[in-house]
């Protein structure tokens, strides 16, 4: 299967700070990806570099098999909608859509108009007078209606209320079903989008710490709860990514599948097992990565 985006050993330095550290992954066609991680993990930097709006310090990026820099043929097949997109002074949404229509070859005007109605966007109001949610709607509409083969959404619904977010997910899935493409959603609301994502890439401090199918991550970790000694006995030798204690009880998050015998042992020992949501897994994984880094730092 041809990759649409290939990132290899991508490193980005800002002075002494390493924003991206040997990041490598591929994006396949017709897949919805989640690009997750804490603030400052490097998600926006990564998307900027892939779309040639920023430059790598070292490493390689290829889009549709070519370098994207100043490559009009490749660039117009991508769309990157930022969370803080700047629009020309005194322009209105209708202007932005008009330009987008000219720039994106797959632009669908009917979809754009439908989304304008769905989001109740006042297209004739100057963009600088729009609310935060309305401003995000402009970007969301452009990103969806452009139908670019590779579309990046960076926190596309800042300022959206829950109803608007639902509209966004529904329209996204609907259009994706009919016009499959590669979509990358970068967001903090992980649990809300977990079911939409086919694959998840998690960045932490500029490194890729997870790159898996969402389904595989679903039973990647569990929380074992119960008496301290019994929990300790069960979790000995397992990869622990989080611990919490309350008096005589502990709750320990461990990685790994539970076999039939495991489950039997848990019941026998009165230990409680609960699943870990994708959001919790990502949070724990980033905490664990921070812990490892701290340990390594301390060891030096």
């Amino acid at each position, binding site marked *: 299967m041809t990759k649409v985006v290939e990132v290899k050993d991508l490193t980005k330095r800002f002075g002494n700070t390493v924003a991206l550290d040997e990041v490598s992954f591929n994006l396949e066609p017709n897949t919805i990806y989640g690009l997750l991680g804490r603030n400052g993990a490097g998600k926006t930097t990564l998307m900027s570099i892939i779309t040639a709006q920023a430059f790598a310090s070292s490493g390689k990026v290829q889009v549709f098999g070519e370098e994207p820099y100043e490559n009009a043929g490749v660039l117009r097949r991508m769309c990157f909608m930022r969370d803080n997109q700047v629009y020309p002074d005194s322009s209105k949404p209708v202007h932005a859509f008009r330009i987008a229509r000219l720039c994106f070859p797959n632009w669908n005007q009917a979809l754009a108009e439908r989304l304008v109605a769905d989001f109740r966007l006042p297209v004739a109001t100057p963009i600088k007078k729009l609310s935060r949610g309305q401003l995000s709607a402009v970007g969301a509409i452009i990103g969806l209606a452009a139908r670019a083969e590779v579309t990046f959404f960076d926190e596309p619904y800042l300022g959206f209320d829950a109803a608007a977010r639902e509209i966004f997910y529904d329209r996204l*899935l*609907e259009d994706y079903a009919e016009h499959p493409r590669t979509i990358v959603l970068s967001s903090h609301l992980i649990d809300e989008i977990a*079911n*939409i994502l*086919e694959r998840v890439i998690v960045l932490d401090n500029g490194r890729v710490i997870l790159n898996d199918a969402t389904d595989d991550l679903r039973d990647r970790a569990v929380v074992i709860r119960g008496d301290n000694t019994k929990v300790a006995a069960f979790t000995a030798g397992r990869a622990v990514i989080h611990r919490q204690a309350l008096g005589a009880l502990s709750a320990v998050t461990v990685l790994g599948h539970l076999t039939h015998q495991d489950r039997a042992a848990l019941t026998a020992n009165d230990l409680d097992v609960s699943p870990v949501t994708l959001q919790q897994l990502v949070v724990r994984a980033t905490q664990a990565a921070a812990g490892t880094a701290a340990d390594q730092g301390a060891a030096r």
Partner: protein
Amino acid sequence: MVDDSKALFLQIAERIEDSIVDGHLAEEAQAPSTNELAAFYRINPATALKGIGLLVDKGVLYKQRGIGMFVASGARQALLKERRAAFSDTYLEPLVAEAHKLGLSADDLAALINQRFSERTAG
């Protein structure tokens, strides 16, 4: 709604099986399409496709080219049989374990079960 410990596509397959078992989805009737499932549950179409693929492999659904997925005849019976076999593991094991914890004997349990059954048929 969604159980976080089980793969999503498995849950989707199970829900379709549920609707076959309780009669909502009849044999030889058309099953919901991938896109319909994706839109309804707000999930990725690939996941829906995987769930349906699982049921096709299992023989619960079959594909009519150009039209869609249909429920195979005999699917309901096959599912009932499968579920009855798993019934003991899925439901009885935790029931017996809990009863044991509370100090209920097998006879106590039987009496409770009979009571529940009569309540159900009465109401």
